[in-house]
């Protein structure tokens, strides 16, 4: 079996070397350079489109999904080899997608065969871009009090209401959405619906954030018609699907703590501040704070690997994603605080050319939302305390 893996590793390496274009072996230059796929997808380069096509065809955008649904059908060990080889060659993630990280796992667990065959392959190939309709105004982290109604019209629902914090709703093709189908119980009367964002009655309005970016929207539903075959899981039991999916969302957001494509904190600091006579970063206290941060960052990278491994092996605690989400997002905020210090005056520029359009402060401000979106840090700590540590309720 070790031999099989070694062979798979060699093949994978060879395939990546001949199929991953050189431009796709550098980190994305900006958010706009990240591939999200979808009907409206405008590749930032021919290489980006080619890389998505090649990986999607092989199912390697979703290596451990079954092949029959467009996945790679790899074992956990093979999928890990693929990740390692992609990392070794610095290959970009070919496709960033809520379909992959959130809806897909939920469909695999709760979807009908028809739903799986309809949606999963198109997610794998990046043809449909999904968004998530959970939060509502005045609900915040308290999802159970949601008010968007879906009225039962026999073979379909009519949906009315409003969502907020819908990530990239203005760029998405379809939405997976929580709606209230029964008002008599709080969590029991919620259903999980899929529908198209291009149909009549759906409108979106981007929310401008303190970073100046608008990754989130307000999303309005005005008599939107949704066939009943688009319910995932049982009617009125959408909460189970939602909870399952939230775990996967946290998993994804927690990944933000790892460095990803961005510049390292030490490199950024060296670039702006230079070295002292001994060759050390020329700001001793900042240097020490960075050094202590790097310990935590590298330790968390080990944790992220362990988390994926235990998750794939079915050994992770069900609430472990909360731990990853909490730690990863807090770490990422610290990282950007240090990047701002490392950038000094330069990092305060908001719109200038030299600052790449204020990339540093905008990214810094953007990270402050990491510990709020997808369930606040406080919610994650509540979950850990109660579900992992078994501490009693208030």
């Amino acid at each position, binding site marked *: 079996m070790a031999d099989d893996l070694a062979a798979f590793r060699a093949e994978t390496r060879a395939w990546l070397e001949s199929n991953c274009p050189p431009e796709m072996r550098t980190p994305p230059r900006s958010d706009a350079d990240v591939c999200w796929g979808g009907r409206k997808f405008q590749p930032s380069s021919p290489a980006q489109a080619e890389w998505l096509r090649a990986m999607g065809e092989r199912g390697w955008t979703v290596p451990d999904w079954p092949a029959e649904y467009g996945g790679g059908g790899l074992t956990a060990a093979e999928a890990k080899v693929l990740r390692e080889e992609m990392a070794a060659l610095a290959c970009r993630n070919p496709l960033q997608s809520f379909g992959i990280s959130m809806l897909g796992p939920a469909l695999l667990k709760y979807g009908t065969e028809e739903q799986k065959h309809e949606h999963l392959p198109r997610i794998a190939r990046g043809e449909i871009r999904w968004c998530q309709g959970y*939060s509502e105004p005045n609900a*915040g*982290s*308290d999802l159970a009090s949601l008010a968007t109604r879906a009225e039962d019209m026999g073979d379909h629902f009519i949906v009315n209401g409003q969502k*907020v*914090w819908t990530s990239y709703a203005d760029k998405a093709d379809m939405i997976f959405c929580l709606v209230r189908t029964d008002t008599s119980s709080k969590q029991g009367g919620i259903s999980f619906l899929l529908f198209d964002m291009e149909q009549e009655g759906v409108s979106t309005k981007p*929310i*401008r*954030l*303190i970073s*100046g970016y608008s990754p989130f929207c307000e999303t309005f539903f005005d008599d939107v018609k949704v066939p009943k075959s688009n319910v995932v899981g049982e009617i009125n039991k959408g909460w189970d699907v939602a909870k399952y999916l939230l775990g996967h969302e946290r998993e994804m957001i927690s990944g933000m703590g790892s460095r990803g494509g961005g510049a390292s904190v030490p490199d950024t600091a060296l670039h*702006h*501040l230079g070295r002292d006579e001994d060759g050390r970063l020329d*700001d*001793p*206290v*900042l240097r020490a*704070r960075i050094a202590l941060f790097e310990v935590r960052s590298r330790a968390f990278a080990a944790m992220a690997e362990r988390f994926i491994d235990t998750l794939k092996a079915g050994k992770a605690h069900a609430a472990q994603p909360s731990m990853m989400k909490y730690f990863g997002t807090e770490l990422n*905020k610290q990282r950007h*605080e240090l990047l*701002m*210090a490392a*950038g*000094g*005056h*330069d990092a*305060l*520029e*908001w*719109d*200038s050319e*030299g*600052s790449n359009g*204020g990339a540093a*402060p905008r990214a810094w*401000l953007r990270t*402050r*939302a990491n*510990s*709020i*979106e997808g369930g*606040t*840090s*406080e919610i994650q*700590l509540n979950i850990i305390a109660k579900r992992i540590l078994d501490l009693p309720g208030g």
Partner: protein
Amino acid sequence: MPTYWNEDQQMLADSARPFLADKAPVSHLRALRDEGNADGFSRDLWREFADMGFTGLLVGEEDGGLGLGHVEAGVVLEEIGRNLSPSPFLTTSIGAVTALKSGSPAARQAWLPGIVAGETVAALALEEGARHRPHRVATKAQRSGNGFRIDGAKSFAVQAQASDLLIVSARTAGGEREADGITLFAIPRSAPGVTLQSEMLVDGGHAARVLLEGVEVDGDAVLGEVDRGSDTLGHVLSALRAGSSAELVGLAEGASGMTLSYLRTRKQFDRIIGSFQALQHRAAQLYCEIEVARAATLKAQQLLDDGSEGAHEAASVAKAMTGMASALAVQEAIQMHGGIGMTDEHDIGFFMKRQRVLAEMFGDADFHAEALARAAGY
């Protein structure tokens, strides 16, 4: 001297507070930003500062000012911080005025009346690198005629584009990293050879790169002694550090006040969120940090007003402590506000942006902790 405000200082606070809350609340900053105001502040407001006597607060009575001290300046700055009121007060009425106190009678006569009247705006061109390192000066000033010829480039000169006067540090002797050999100059913004490249900052303010190419000034432009500018610079910086500390204390209080109001009213899971103990403890910890920062700031102001030797170190302590306390204040404010705090529509984000700029200016906690460690000999 007791370490709290006396009656006069309390009265000043009682007039500054409604004035700034009324004339320049956060909505004022938002309006300036949204209209793309190139100065980043309102000249009308600056003249109203003059009517209140604020502009000349540190200026001696003999020069037409109020002759008050750094404690009083801090009273005003705290309200500026609480409201995020954009103005040239810190750079002009604290920084430039302190520098001009070491200037020739001609320099004082040339600039102080305009400052007191709210007509003149000054900017500080004391930086050259990416972080505050006031003694690393490569800009050169060479003797020329009965004055100097200045060549070099300064960075991060806040509000320089809107200014009439630049306070510039230049090297008249010594190597690039030496404290000795620096001289301070008062240079008209309009002097031939001065060009600016101004950029908007994260907080809606503006800062410029200042190019000095063969700028000729006469001897009256020297502030303090030639080659001994680091003494004057030390006073200017301590005044600015104490002043920005006071502004940061006000800012931290503004942010935490807004957050406490939110905690007292916002409900989630059918409970007032301010009743959750974890948030209560964090709010209480933040309160302590701000109180300690406030005490350190007042101490620095009092020592500056006493002309005490310890004032420079006290100003470093204050700037470092307020930098850390105010960072915590805005971070907790954003986190406790949840999603709404991340929107541009809500005011709280402006506090985070302004905090970052103020904390960086004149040295952050890293800089001052290092400076204090060196001063203590370890």
